[in-house]
């Protein structure tokens, strides 16, 4: 682990304690507890799979992130505890949604009303917390600014398009995935590309956390969701980059 990363991670922690050592010694467990925090559900242990609190897991994920080419990315599977993942999925499936339909730009469903977002309050609190931000930084070595909480859904006949009028600014895409089991040939994958070549395809993956830095010149679209998905849905919560 480079000194730069260690320094970067340390400066992110404002009020939280993260115990780590150079090289993350084997067996180290991270303690993300906030001193004085009294809000239920805002500790990382309340949400994520305990395996991701182990140094070996984080070390492995960071190695994957660092070595993936041509676009760095990591998709942490079985990310939330099974119980929490099922709860969030049921919220997403039952939520009131509104369709965003601009046919030559994008078609998808989103939840913006207070009523629709109410069940997600504790998850949102954790996603926007410094703990989460620190955790993402440990996974990637990046200073990931989490400022969104954007639940979206894609079903049959929905998509996004590359469009000259909406150039995405460089950033880091971070999203939690609660999709149904979508067949590989059902469409709905995220495609990352430049003007000259395709870089990466990210398929829906239930109960995963995906992190993809998107540098200047890298664009993104959601492939048209075709009839093979039936009534299944791609449900994601974007916390950065949407």
């Amino acid at each position, binding site marked *: 682990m480079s000194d730069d990363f260690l320094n970067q991670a340390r400066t992110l922690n404002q009020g939280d304690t993260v115990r780590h050592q150079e090289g993350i010694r084997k067996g180290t467990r991270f303690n993300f507890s906030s001193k004085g925090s009294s809000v239920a559900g805002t500790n990382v242990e309340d949400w994520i799979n305990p395996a991701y609190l182990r140094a070996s897991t984080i070390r492995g994920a960071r190695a994957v992130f660092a070595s993936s080419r041509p676009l760095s990315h990591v998709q942490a599977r079985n990310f939330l505890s099974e119980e929490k993942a099922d709860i969030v999925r049921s919220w997403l499936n039952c939520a009131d949604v509104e369709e965003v339909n*601009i*046919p*030559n730009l994008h078609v998808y469903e989103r939840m913006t009303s207070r009523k629709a977002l109410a069940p997600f309050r504790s998850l949102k609190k954790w996603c926007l917390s410094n703990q989460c931000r620190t955790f993402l930084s440990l996974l990637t070595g990046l200073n990931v600014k989490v400022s969104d909480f954007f639940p979206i859904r894609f079903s049959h*006949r929905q*998509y996004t398009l590359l469009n000259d009028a909406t150039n995405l600014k460089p950033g880091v895409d971070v999203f939690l995935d609660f999709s149904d089991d979508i067949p590989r*040939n059902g*469409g709905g994958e995220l495609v990352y590309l430049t003007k000259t070549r395709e870089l990466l395809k990210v398929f829906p993956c239930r109960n995963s956390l995906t992190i993809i830095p998107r540098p200047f010149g890298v664009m993104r679209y959601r492939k048209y969701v*075709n*009839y093979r998905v039936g009534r299944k849905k791609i449900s994601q919560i974007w916390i950065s980059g949407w």
Partner: protein
Amino acid sequence: MMALTCLLNFQGLAKLRELKQPFPHIVIEQVLSAPFVRALAKAILGEPKKRWNTDLYQFWQTNDLAQSNHTKIKGFVRQFTSIETKNCIKKILGCQVLGPVDCSGFVFEDTDYLLPHDDQMPGRKVAYILYLSTSKKKNGGALDLFGSTPSGKPTKVKKSITPRAGTLVLFPVSRRSIHQVAEHVGNNPRITVGGWFNE
């Protein structure tokens, strides 16, 4: 093959429907004889094709049919891109199209599609689609025509044209000519010849 110019002389007029909504377009049925349609469809399927798979579309496309060595295709292209056809289009649609004619074969397989767009590119004056296969409604693949706001933003599908072999659809290209090919479903391919008459 029945030449496009012949249609204006007799029964073609009865089969020619000029429609204005949601944007001006022409639908001409039985523009080719059934045997010729079948032969042309078979020829298109035999042509080398490129697979396109992007955000906007997914389908097979042949090279420019003017380069084809197939007898049936050569005969069709010669007649379809002739000055007589261009004069005919000017009479029907009021558009001067004396420039080159883009002409490719398209094959849509299961889940293939072409999402909403207006075809606007420099030089393109009149778009056309000649259907060489017939689809049932359940198989999708319809040509969907969108309504639009005065500023050209698409609203929703106002009309769907289900593919019927031998039918020719023409429309002037403008910011209002927003259309898509709905997802094709099923194992029987949707086969067309399409492109643009240029100014």
